């Protein structure tokens, strides 16, 4: 598949899970394909990075459901901050661990998982729809504990980026952390997996151990080969974060002209191939 083939299977109003963590191994070629599409009114669900800022700034997002939004080396995502401060997006902000339980409940098809995270804090105030449940089991002091019921995320689709995959959709991560990408795949009605390189099934063990092939094809509905597809976020061991590019992106939040130029050059690039060509020509210029 291509990025645009994936977009053709999505529709406005959908709830879309996006893998990765902060500015790490994000499926950016797919995010850019959403950016240049007609899709709108989306609910995005993620451990958020630049995809939240980009899609919010472009008016694609109705609601963001997240454990946090950060660019890591730039702790506060400036376009996300702007969207929050202008009130242009609705948000469901959860404790980072509570967010994990929402994914896990979605993957396991149970209505919720219980947790103590949120009791006593304003997470409950910020999410008036969040309910508590009482444990059916008596505890040591003879009482029945009240817990927060984190509802299962219902994802129409998930987008994740892996280091390698085979043509059937078996996905492999080669970096230090899978994050929660396998759960995004399992919690979604359909999952589209981009990867740095498509390899034959028999080659999956050439670069990583058995333990790195974490997303089996039964949870994957389409594979996109997208070299440098996570740019400008990091995708180790294939490449690190493009910090200079990220700084340029972050600076556009304060300057409408710079943002328009960024949209025109990078987000409106008609294909990932063209994006890479523009990237290489920039490198050529600065070299």
């Amino acid at each position, binding site marked *: 598949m291509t990025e645009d083939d994936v977009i053709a299977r999505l529709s406005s109003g959908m709830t879309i899970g996006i893998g990765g963590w902060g500015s790490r191994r994000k499926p950016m070629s797919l995010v850019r394909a959403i950016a240049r599409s007609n899709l709108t009114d989306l609910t995005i669900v993620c451990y958020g990075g630049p995809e939240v800022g980009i899609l919010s700034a472009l008016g694609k997002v109705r609601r963001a459901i997240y454990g946090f939004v950060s660019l890591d080396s730039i*702790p506060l995502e400036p376009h996300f901050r702007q969207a929050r401060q202008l009130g242009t997006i609705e948000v469901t902000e959860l404790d980072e*661990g*509570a967010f994990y339980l929402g994914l896990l409940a979605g993957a396991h098809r149970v209505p919720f998982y219980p947790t103590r*995270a949120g009791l006593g*804090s304003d997470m409950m*105030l910020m999410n008036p729809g969040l309910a508590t449940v009482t444990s059916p089991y008596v*505890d040591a002091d003879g*009482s029945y504990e009240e817990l927060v019921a984190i509802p299962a995320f219902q994802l129409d689709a998930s987008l994740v980026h892996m280091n390698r995959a085979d043509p059937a959709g078996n996905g492999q991560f080669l970096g230090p*952390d899978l994050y929660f990408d396998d759960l995004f795949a399992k919690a979604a009605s359909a999952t589209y997996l981009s990867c740095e390189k498509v390899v034959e099934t028999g080659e999956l063990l050439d670069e990583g151990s058995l333990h790195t092939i974490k997303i089996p094809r039964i949870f994957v509905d389409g594979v996109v080969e997208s070299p440098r597809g996570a740019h400008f976020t990091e995708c180790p061991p294939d490449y690190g974060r493009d910090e200079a590019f990220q700084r340029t992106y972050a600076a556009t939040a304060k300057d409408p002209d710079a943002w328009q130029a960024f949209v025109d050059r990078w987000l409106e690039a008609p294909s990932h191939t063209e994006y890479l060509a523009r990237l290489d020509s920039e490198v050529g210029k600065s070299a």
Partner: protein
Amino acid sequence: MNHPTEFPASRDEVCVVAIAEAFRGDGEILCNPIGTTPIIGGRLARATFEPAMVMTDAVAVLAANILPVGDDDAERLVEAWMPYRDVFDVVWSGRRHIVMGASQIDAHGNQNFAAIGDWHRPKAQLLGLRGAPGNLTNHATTYWIPHHSTRSFVPTVDLVSGPGYDRVAPLSAFIRANHEIRRVVSNLAVMDFDNPGKPDAPRRMRLRSVHPGVTVDEVIEATGFALDLPDDVPESRLPTSEELHLIREVLDPRGLRKAEFGG
């Protein structure tokens, strides 16, 4: 090795030691400080009086060796894999002590680093809740506040990310047993909640020590609520010569800690 009388400790080094002291007695848990000064403090504690603690390399492994702060290329002695999913397991196991920041904190230890103003449409969107709600209901927390002022030590926080003692008082026995705000360390002083006080009143922040060169009145002046004041407020302890050597030569040879102190 540097000698403290020849090279007196500076304020940032006193703060590092105050953070290290927060971990004293923790034993074999995940020491998880966030931020440059807290990381140096946590690593100092492990390098000296709390050798059993485990620590992440700030990516995805527990590193058994002493790493200099902010050095991505330093060689790690890996003792375990610790991806983010496993960090949550450790949080919920209770075997963790975190050091977090706080944009605002009140007398009962309610912490806000989520947003300033009305959260529906904040005046300033900050970090968000992050992991604070889960941390405070499961294990010990210490706060590091490098700019002690009436803007950070406030009568009421705009939003509660990490609940304080009054918020936790009506919650379950489990949460009350596991919730602990061990210390609040600022650039001026060390505070704690080691004051059970009256039976029905939730704990309030107490002044534990003032850093050398700081007066009690200065701390009172910079705090937007009434601190509990013991009859005698000692000075925060100075680093030993071994600690100064570790801070300056091993843990932070590039002096990254100075940035938080306007250095």
